[in-house]
């Protein structure tokens, strides 16, 4: 997606002849020497070279800078000749920077990347943004303005002033005037500053706030200072409000991770009563399935999750069924012993993954449509991966609820778990139900694994990190209640996120644990208890 946009931008720029003069030999030479400077000079020289290239107006300037930013600019060891290289399965495809033509291949021992640092990168971005300002593509323009806003200076503002009138898109125009306003805050005349201040009112941007604060604190003109202070209060107030929203979002997101991790356990442990210590490892298997799926379809990462979700469900489900058939079914009626056996299984699974996939973390890529954030406004942006995880958690919850309410499976599972012998005597095939349910619980754990692979490590230890929290959530919510798991997970997540800023992450976690311990004293059966005579029949 991004890459596509970039290509568009580049080709459009070229088509429009943004760069006026036709490419001549002299230009080429200048570019080549700048390119050399990119490789050989100090980082300051490199930054200067970037500027020179951008200002040269050479038609290849934009693609070369883009390649530099994308770390695709290499030099040949020995000659020092600059090329653009794209990695292939083995080695690289080499392109000539001047012509853009493919000129052959090179091995990893022949070329080296042109090294740049953040300063150079920042410079290159700024240059590209400047070029993008007059792009016909709306997206490109908006990104360019956005970028320049953070570093707007009088020169840039001047540039924008020329463009703002013609800008057809409202939002972009607004941002442009913001940038202009920001630049004018340094104007010597108080009136202009005051006027500029007005254009800034209402914006929640960091930079705006900082600049306004600067004026509010030490503008020589009292009127400006007062107005700035007023605007600043407004900004701060609104930012605080949005900050609260952000905190709730964080809480929900943390909670949805908890509940997703706990759903599988709510089934195997809550409903079936199996203390499944291997639950975390099933989550891990789900995550590794995602990894394998991405390995198998390296060119379609964007769609890999749609394959990974059913695949993980199946793989872990099958593991679950195998565990149930192989071990757990011999242990019904001895629920505590399942702890021992599943603990053994968890050790085996961990080591299995270590042996097969190495003990290192595996890299699972995030599809483009899941990375980044939705910017609600400058003060609140919701990270997409978290947003999707929240949605996914609720989706899984809904499906499970439906499954348990709408089919007889739920009924049979509960019957079996309450009285195995009698369930069989009324015709329920307990072994089938057990295998199915455990498989389902395991499969749901696998789904959690897919989701977790998008926000955290995929490694042999990942299961360990979630097992305790999962048990805690299930017990807090009340074993055997999906609703309990939902409410339990979300409330613990939110609680944690509200404590964290006050106490720090470590203490917050301790406090949440203590809270749960004390809460269980109050409600010994969790949030959604199963009450009744049976529980106390003696």
């Amino acid at each position, binding site marked *: 997606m991004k890459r596509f946009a970039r290509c568009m931008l580049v080709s459009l720029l070229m088509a429009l002849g943004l760069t006026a003069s036709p490419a001549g030999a002299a230009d080429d030479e200048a570019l080549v020497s700048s390119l050399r400077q990119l490789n050989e000079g100090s980082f300051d020289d490199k930054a200067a070279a970037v500027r020179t290239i951008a200002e040269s107006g050479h038609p290849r300037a934009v693609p070369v800078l883009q390649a530099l930013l994308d770390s695709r600019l290499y030099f040949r060891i020995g000659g020092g000749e600059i090329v653009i290289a794209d990695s292939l399965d083995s080695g690289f495809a080499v392109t000539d920077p001047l012509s853009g033509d493919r000129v052959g291949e090179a091995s990893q021992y022949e070329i080296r990347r042109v090294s740049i640092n953040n300063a150079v990168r920042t410079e290159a971005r700024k240059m590209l943004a400047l070029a993008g300002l007059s792009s016909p593509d709306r997206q490109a323009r908006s990104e360019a303005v956005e970028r320049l806003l953070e570093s707007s200076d009088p020169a840039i503002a001047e540039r924008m002033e020329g463009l703002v009138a013609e800008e057809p898109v409202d939002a972009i125009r607004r941002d442009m005037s913001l940038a202009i306003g920001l630049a004018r805050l340094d104007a010597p005349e108080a009136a202009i500053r005051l006027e500029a201040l007005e254009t800034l009112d209402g914006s929640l941007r960091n930079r705006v706030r900082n600049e306004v604060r600067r004026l509010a604190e030490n503008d020589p003109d009292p009127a400006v200072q007062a107005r700035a202070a007023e605007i600043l209060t407004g900004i701060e107030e609104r930012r605080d409000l949005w900050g609260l929203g952000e905190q709730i979002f964080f809480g929900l997101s943390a909670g949805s991770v908890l509940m997703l991790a706990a759903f599988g356990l709510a089934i195997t442990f809550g409903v079936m009563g199996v203390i499944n210590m291997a639950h975390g490892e099933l989550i891990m298997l789900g995550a590794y399935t995602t990894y394998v799926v991405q390995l198998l379809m390296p060119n379609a990462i964007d769609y890999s999750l749609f394959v990974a979700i059913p695949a993980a469900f199946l793989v872990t489900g099958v593991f679950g069924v195998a565990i149930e058939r192989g071990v757990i079914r011999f242990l019904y009626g001895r629920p505590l012993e399942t702890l021992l056996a599943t603990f053994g299984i968890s050790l085996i699974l961990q080591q299995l993954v270590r042996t097969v996939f190495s003990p290192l973390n595996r890299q699972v890529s995030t599809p483009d449509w899941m990375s980044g954030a939705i910017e609600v406004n400058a003060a609140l942006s919701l990270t997409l991966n978290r947003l999707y995880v929240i949605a996914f958690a609720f989706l899984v919850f809904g499906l499970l609820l439906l499954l348990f309410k709408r089919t007889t499976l739920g009924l049979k599972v509960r019957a079996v778990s309450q009285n195995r012998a009698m369930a069989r005597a009324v015709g329920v095939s307990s072994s089938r139900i057990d295998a199915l349910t455990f498989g389902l619980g395991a499969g749901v754990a696998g789904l959690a694994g897919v989701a977790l692979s998008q926000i955290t490590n995929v490694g042999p230890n990942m299961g360990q990190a979630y097992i*305790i929290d999962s048990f805690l959530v299930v017990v807090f919510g009340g074993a055997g209640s999906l609703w309990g798991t939902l409410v339990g997970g979300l409330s613990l997540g939110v609680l944690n996120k509200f404590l964290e800023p006050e106490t720090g992450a470590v203490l917050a976690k301790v406090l949440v644990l203590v809270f749960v311990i004390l809460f269980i004293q109050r409600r010994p059966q969790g949030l959604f208890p199963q009450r009744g005579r049976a529980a*106390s029949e003696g």
Partner: protein
Amino acid sequence: MATPQSSATRLIPERPWRRLLHGDMGGRILLGALAVLIVVIPILNQGVSPSSPFHVSDYTVNLLGRYLCFALLALALDLVWGYAGILSLGHGAFFALGGYAMGMYLMRQIGDRGVYGDPVLPDFMVFLGWEQLPWFWYGFDQFWFAALMALLVPGVFGFIFGWLAFRSRVTGVYLSIISQAMTYAFMLAFFRNEMGFGGNNGLTDFKDILGFSLSDPQTRLALFVASALALGLAYLLCRMVVRSRAGRVVRAVRDAEPRTRSLGYRTDHYKLWIWTLSAMLAGVAGALYVPQVGIINPSEFSPLNSIEIVVWVAVGGRGTLYGAALGGALVNYAQTLLTAMIAELWLFALGGLFVAVTMFFPRGLVGLLRRREDRS
């Protein structure tokens, strides 16, 4: 004429403290083995020349001493899990608390031999810039005080936790999970440097105990003997407890708590009592363990450790006391062996062992040995 007593009432011991080991083959073997160890190991270690095949190295003595601590810990857990039916997933916390109490004493014993040479403050405190000893470190320069605390601190924490949990009738898995939460909370809290227990690195660098150097083989041997004695005594104590009527009440609580209550027994008192007792035994195990390994840090609180204790008991045989002790020692021995022999594969072996034991020897290893029930 006295009524002819049915043979059945003879099953109930006359006085719990008399003929303690009556019908307890496993216990006799265990105590016998301990007695033999106490006598033989020092001889083999000190009296036999190192080149002889019968020589027991200092390393082995140390290892054995630690297994005995684990056995004691397993015994403590069996008391609550096997007899009172309370599955604690947090017993490691009591063990660690006992260990910390002892560690604090050992820390104070370092005196000015520490890295920074402060006569009072342990190194980590100097390093964190603490000016004076926090109040809860007072008294730990006295061995008797530390020993008492190794009993009391786990006891008090056990009591508070149990008091809260049992009076609100938190039972079953709910109790298990909150006990796990408890040890987890302890772990996180002890990780914090501000707590004053050395943070992640914990307490280490011990020099001597009661004036004897910890690196001295004789001290090691003494600690080993102390562990063996502690295990033996604890076994007898537990045995007495489970043979007493109180022990039968506790088992009744395990099987049918409401019914026990309806007979007039305050089941919460019984649970609290046995839980606290067990916590204290675990504390003793921890206190003996720390000088033998030379370090105590928050990872002893990690929930995984507590789960492992449960596994030892289950492997050994739950509800038999001596089985638990055996499990504690054996599983750890297996780990020592396996981690050295098949470093890459040992988890497979250990995991497989756990699965196999549950499936094929539901009553643990001692289930293999015992043909007939001999509960008392």
